[in-house]
C-alpha cells in the first residue's frame, strides 16, 4: 500500500521522455533474453508458496537458446527448453501441453503494450548485488494487473518482477538472489535429469475455433490458442481457449455438464484467479471456467460473455 502511493507520487513527477526510455529498456530486455547467456538462482513467492530455483540459459554459437530450470527445494521440478520449445518437463500433467505450431508464441511488443499499459521509469534499485533500473508497467484500465520490473543495468535481464493488484498489493514476487552473466556455462548443467520427461504434445486438431467465442474481452486481449481435448476426469470434450494482451494471460475451459448438478465457483491461488459459471446452451448446461492472472471482476465478466457458436447474447 505504502509502496503504491510512492509509485503514484513518483509517477506524477515523471517526464514523458521517460516513457520512451522505459520502452527502450523493455526492448533491451527482449534482446537480452535472446543474446545473453547467464546462470543464477531466483526465488518465487506468492500467497501460500515460496520456492527457490536455479536457471541456466545458454546462447549457442548459432544464436540458439538452451534453457534449463530446476527447482531447488521440495520436489526437483525441472524444465528444459531449446530454441523456445519445451523439450522436457518433470511434472504430473506434462501430457496436457498443446503443440505450439498452430499457434506460434507471439513475442512481446513494447510498442503495442503501451496501448494497454503505461510504462514508466521509476528509479534505481539493487537486486542480487547488481544495480537495476526500475520499470513500472501500469494498466490503463481496471481489467489487468500492473508489474514492477527491475532490470539489470548492465544486461537488461529481469532481476526482479512484482505483480501488483489495483491497490498496489503484492500478488507475486519473482526475484534473483544471484546472477552470473560472465562465467562460461558448464555443458552438463544444461543436461536434463532423469525425471525430466519428454513433452507429449496434444493434437491441436478438433480446434473448432468458432465453436465458442467471447462477446466481451478486455481491450488488447486476443485469442492466442484454441483446441479441444478430452477431459481426463469425465471423458467429455473440453474446449480450451487462451487469450493474452502481450503480458497478462487467461485460459477458458468449457466442459458440457450433461445434467450433472454443479454450482458456480470462485477461487484464488496466489495471483491466479479461477471463476466457474454454469451456462445454458442448446446442447444442455455447460461449465465455463476462466483462469488467469487477472482481477476477479475481469474473469467474472469474461465467463459471463462466453457464447457457443452461433448463439447470440441475451
Amino acid at each position: 500500500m505504502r509502496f503504491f502511493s510512492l509509485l503514484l507520487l513518483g509517477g506524477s513527477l515523471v517526464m514523458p521522455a521517460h516513457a520512451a526510455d522505459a520502452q527502450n529498456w523493455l526492448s533491451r530486455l527482449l534482446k537480452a533474453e535472446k543474446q545473453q547467456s547467464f546462470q543464477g538462482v531466483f526465488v518465487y513467492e506468492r500467497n501460500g508458496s515460496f520456492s527457490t530455483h536455479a536457471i541456466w540459459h545458454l546462447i549457442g554459437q548459432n544464436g540458439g537458446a538452451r534453457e534449463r530450470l530446476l527447482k531447488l527445494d521440495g520436489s526437483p521440478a525441472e524444465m528444459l527448453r531449446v530454441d523456445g520449445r519445451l523439450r522436457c518437463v518433470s511434472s504430473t500433467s506434462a501430457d496436457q501441453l498443446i503443440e505450439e505450431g498452430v499457434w506460434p508464441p507471439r513475442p512481446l511488443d513494447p510498442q503495442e503494450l503501451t496501448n494497454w499499459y503505461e510504462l514508466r521509469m521509476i528509479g534505481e534499485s539493487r537486486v542480487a548485488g547488481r544495480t537495476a533500473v526500475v520499470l513500472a508497467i501500469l494498466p490503463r484500465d481496471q481489467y489487468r494487473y500492473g508489474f514492477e520490473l527491475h532490470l539489470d543495468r548492465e544486461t537488461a535481464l529481469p532481476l526482479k518482477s512484482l505483480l501488483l493488484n489495483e491497490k498496489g498489493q503484492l500478488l507475486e514476487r519473482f526475484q534473483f538472489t544471484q546472477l552470473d552473466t560472465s562465467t562460461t556455462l558448464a555443458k552438463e548443467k544444461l543436461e536434463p535429469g532423469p525425471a525430466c520427461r519428454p513433452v507429449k504434445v496434444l493434437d491441436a486438431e478438433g480446434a473448432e475455433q468458432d465453436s465458442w467465442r467471447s462477446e466481451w474481452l478486455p481491450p488488447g486481449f486476443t485469442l492466442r490458442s484454441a483446441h479441444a481435448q478430452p477431459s481426463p476426469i469425465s471423458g467429455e470434450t473440453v474446449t480450451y481457449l487462451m487469450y493474452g494482451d502481450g503480458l497478462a494471460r487467461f485460459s477458458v475451459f468449457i466442459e458440457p455438464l450433461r445434467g450433472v448438478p454443479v454450482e458456480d465457483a470462485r477461487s484464488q491461488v496466489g495471483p491466479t484467479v479461477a471463476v466457474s459459471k454454469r451456462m445454458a446452451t442448446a446442447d444442455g448446461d455447460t461449465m465455463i471456467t476462466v483462469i488467469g492472472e487477472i482481477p476477479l471482476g475481469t474473469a467474472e465478466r469474461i465467463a459471463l460473455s462466453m457464447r457457443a457458436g452461433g448463439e447470440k447474447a441475451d
Partner: protein
Amino acid sequence: MSREALYESLSAVMDDEADELELHRVLAAGRDDAEFRATWARYQLARAAMHKELLEPRLDIAASVSAALSMEDTPKIKIENTPKARRFSWGMVGRIAVAASVTVAVLAGVRLYNQSERAGAEMAQQATQPSLPIPQAHGTPVLAGYTEGAEQPQASSPNEAEQDANWHEKRLPAYIRQHAQQSTVNGAESALPYARSTSLENR
C-alpha cells in the same frame, strides 16, 4: 507492561510494522483481555473505514488468534502422516498454517482481510486461514484459497452439494496447472510461468 505500550504494539501490528516480540504481546493480550479484543476490533473497523475497505463483521480476528494459539502445539509431522492429509480440507489448512507459524497466520490474516472488496464475504471469512504450502504425501495439490461460489442454493440436498464440490475440486487443479504450463509455451518470458506452475505442485 503498560497499557499504552500495548496499544502502541497493536498499532504497529495493524500497520505491519510490529516485530515478533510485539506481535506475541498483542496476541497474548488478544486472547486474555476482552477489552483489548474490543479495541482491536474497533481499530480494524476504523482502518477499514479509512481505507473504504470491505467490512466483514463476522471476521473475529481475536477469536481466530486464540484458536491459533490453542492449536500451536499440534505436531506438524503427525498431520503430514495422516491419510486424511491427502484430502482437501480447510481444517487441515488451518492447522498446518498454525503449526508453521502463528505470526504468519495472524499477519496474513489481517492483510488478506483487507485485500479485496470484490472477493466478497466468504473470502474475508477464510482470510483467517492463510494458505501456506501444504506438505502432502500424494494426490492433487491443494487449492489455496479455494472457495465455493456465493450463490449456494438453500434447497440443495447434501448429496448434491457434495457432488458439486467434488466436480470443481477434481478439475480446478488440473485446469490451473494447464493454464500455467501453457503460459510457458505461449509466453515470451519463460521463468515466471514456470515458477507459477511448479508452485502448484506442493509436494
